[in-house]
C-alpha cells in the first residue's frame, strides 16, 4: 500500500490479478498432496473431498448474489454463461415466441449471441440507452411484444461503468412473465446483487474481474419459479444437465474464494476505490474540453471513462507508456470503428475516438492516481500541441462546419 508501481495498472475492468488468498486456495487443489480428485467420483475419498470443495465454492458464489447454491451452474466464464442463458432460454421457449430484447451497449458476448439467434430466425430488438448510458424503462416496456420471451440487460457496463436499474427492469419482466437475463460479469464486489429482490431469472458471472482466475464463470438459473434452458454443451450430464464437463476444482475453488472475499470486503473496498477515482477525476476535470462518459452517480466506484477532445485515444495511450489503460478508440483493436458503446450514448465519433477508460481496483494506490494525473495532463498537452483540430478550436473554428474528406 502507498506505493507507486510502474507500469501502473489501471485496467481492472479488463481483468484483475488473482488475490494471493485465492491463488493459495487454488494451489491446494492441484498436486498429489492436494485436493486433486474429480468431484464426480462418488466411490472414494478423493472425489468426496473435491466435491466438498466445490460445494463450499458454490455456496460462496450463491451467497454473494442472494441465490440458493443449487441455482449455480459452473461455466468457463461470462461469455459461455451469456451464450447458455440466451440461446438456452430462446431455444427452450421458441414455441412460445421468438422475440428478444436487449440493449446496444451490451457486451459482445450478448450482442453476437443475439445476432446468431437472428440468423436462426429469432427477432431481436436492440434498445438505445439514454445519453447517460442508462436504459429508459418506458422504452423497454414499449418494446415488449406478445411473442417476447427474453430480456437481456447488463448490470454494470464494462466500458463506462454505469449501473442499470436491474430491480426496475426485473419488476417489469416478472409482471409480463418474460424471462430476464442479466450479464453481471462486472458487478461482483462492486455493487450489491440480490437476484430475488431484483427478479432476475438468469445471471452471468465470472471470476477474473473479481480477483479470481480466468477460465471460470457461472450462470445463475432460477428454480422458483423454475427457469428452463436448453443445454449448449452435452456430455456427462454435470450441473443438472445444463452444462456437461468435468468440474475444474481449482478454478471453482478460486471463484468461490474470490466471491467470499468480495462479500466480506466489498463495502470497505468501494469506499477506498471511490476516493481514488474522485481524486483522478478532480485532477483532470479542470482541463479544457474534457468530458466524462456515462452517468457519474449510477456508476461503479472504480470506473472513469473520459474523452479528451482533439486528442486521439490511441496516441494518448502511446504517450502513457507507463500506465496501462484502455481506449474506446478503435485503432487499438483490429476494427477501425470507435467504441460502439460511446456511440450508442450519442457521443460523436470524434469524442469516441478521444476516450480513455481508467479502471481502478484492489491494488491501486493514491500515488498511482497522482502519477497518472500528472502523466495524462502532460500527454494531452503534448498531443494538443500536435493537433490541427486543437489549433482550429483555439482559432474559434466550429469543426462541425468544416467539410471533411471522410476516408
Amino acid at each position, binding site marked *: 500500500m502507498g506505493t507507486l508501481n510502474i507500469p501502473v495498472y489501471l485496467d481492472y475492468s479488463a481483468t484483475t490479478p488473482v488475490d494471493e488468498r485465492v491463488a493459495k486456495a487454488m494451489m491446494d487443489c492441484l498436486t498429489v498432496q492436494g485436493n486433486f480428485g474429480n468431484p464426480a467420483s462418488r466411490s472414494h475419498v478423493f472425489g468426496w473431498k473435491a466435491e466438498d470443495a466445490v460445494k463450499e465454492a458454490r455456496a460462496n458464489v450463491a451467497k454473494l448474489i442472494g441465490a440458493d447454491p443449487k441455482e449455480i451452474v459452473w461455466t468457463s466464464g461470462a461469455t459461455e454463461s451469456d451464450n447458455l442463458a440466451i440461446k438456452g432460454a430462446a431455444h427452450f421457449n421458441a414455441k412460445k415466441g421468438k422475440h428478444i430484447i436487449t440493449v446496444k451497449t451490451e457486451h459482445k458476448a450478448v450482442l453476437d449471441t443475439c445476432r446468431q439467434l437472428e440468423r436462426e430466425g429469432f427477432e431481436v430488438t436492440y434498445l438505445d440507452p439514454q445519453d447517460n448510458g442508462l436504459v429508459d424503462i418506458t422504452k423497454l416496456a414499449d418494446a415488449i411484444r406478445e411473442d417476447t420471451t427474453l430480456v437481456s440487460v447488463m448490470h454494470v457496463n464494462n466500458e463506462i461503468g454505469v449501473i442499470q436499474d436491474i430491480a426496475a427492469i426485473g419488476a417489469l419482466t416478472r409482471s409480463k412473465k418474460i424471462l430476464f437475463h442479466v450479464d453481471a460479469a462486472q458487478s461482483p464486489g462492486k455493487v450489491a446483487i440480490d437476484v430475488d429482490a431484483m427478479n432476475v431469472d438468469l445471471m452471468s458471472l465470472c471470476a477474473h474481474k473479481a480477483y479470481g482466475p480466468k477460465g471460470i464463470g457461472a450462470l445463475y438459473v432460477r428454480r422458483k419459479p423454475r427457469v428452463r434452458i436448453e443445454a449448449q454443451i452435452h456430455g456427462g450430464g454435470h450441473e443438472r444437465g445444463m452444462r456437461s464437463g468435468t468440474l475444474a476444482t481449482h478454478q471453482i475453488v478460486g471463484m468461490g474464494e474470490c466471491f467470499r472475499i468480495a462479500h466480506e470486503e466489498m463495502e470497505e473496498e468501494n469506499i477506498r476505490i471511490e476516493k481514488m477515482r474522485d481524486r483522478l477525476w478532480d485532477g483532470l476535470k479542470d482541463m479544457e474540453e474534457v468530458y466524462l462518459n456515462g452517468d457519474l452517480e449510477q456508476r461503479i466506484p472504480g470506473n472513469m471513462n473520459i474523452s479528451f477532445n482533439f486528442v486521439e485515444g490511441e496516441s494518448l495511450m502511446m504517450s502513457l507508456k507507463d500506465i496501462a489503460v484502455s481506449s474506446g478508440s478503435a485503432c487499438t483493436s483490429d476494427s*477501425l470503428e470507435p467504441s460502439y458503446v460511446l456511440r450508442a450514448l450519442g457521443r460523436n465519433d470524434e469524442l469516441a*475516438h478521444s476516450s480513455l477508460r481508467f479502471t481502478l481496483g484492489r491494488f491501486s494506490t493514491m500515488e498511482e492516481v497522482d502519477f497518472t494525473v500528472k502523466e495524462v495532463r502532460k500527454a494531452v498537452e503534448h498531443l494538443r500541441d500536435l493537433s490541427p483540430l486543437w489549433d482550429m478550436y483555439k482559432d474559434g473554428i466550429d469543426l462541425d462546419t468544416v467539410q*471533411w474528406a471522410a476516408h
Partner: protein
Amino acid sequence: MAYSDKVIDHYENPRNVGKLDADSANVGTGMVGAPACGDVMRLQIQVDDNGVIEDAKFKTYGCGSAIASSSLVTEMVKGKTLDEAAAIKNMEIVEELALPPVKIHCSVLAEDAIAAAIADIRAKQDKKAESAA
C-alpha cells in the same frame, strides 16, 4: 500492438511540428482525413523561387502511426521540387516506418496530404500567373 522503433522515434520527437502562413503565396496547405475517422493531417509546404520545397510543417490528430507518417513526410519533401514530392508513394512510408497492415491507411493519408498541399500551391501559382498575364 507493438510499434517499430522508427514510429516511436517520430512520435516522441516529431520533426517540423507547426504552422506556416496559409495565406502566403509560396505556402501550400493540405488538410486530409476527418475527425470522425480518427485522423486528420495538416501538411504545409513552402517553396522557394526555384520551386523547391524549402520548409515543411505538420500537425496531426491521429494514432501514433499517423503522427509518425506525417512527421516523416515533412523530412522527405524538403529539398524536393513539387514534381519530385508528388512522386512520393505511400509504400515508401510503410517501408521506412515498418507499418503493420492495419496502419497502412496512415501512409495513404500522408500521401494524400502531400498531394493536397501541392494542389493548393499550384492553384495559387496559376492564379498569380493569370493575374500577371
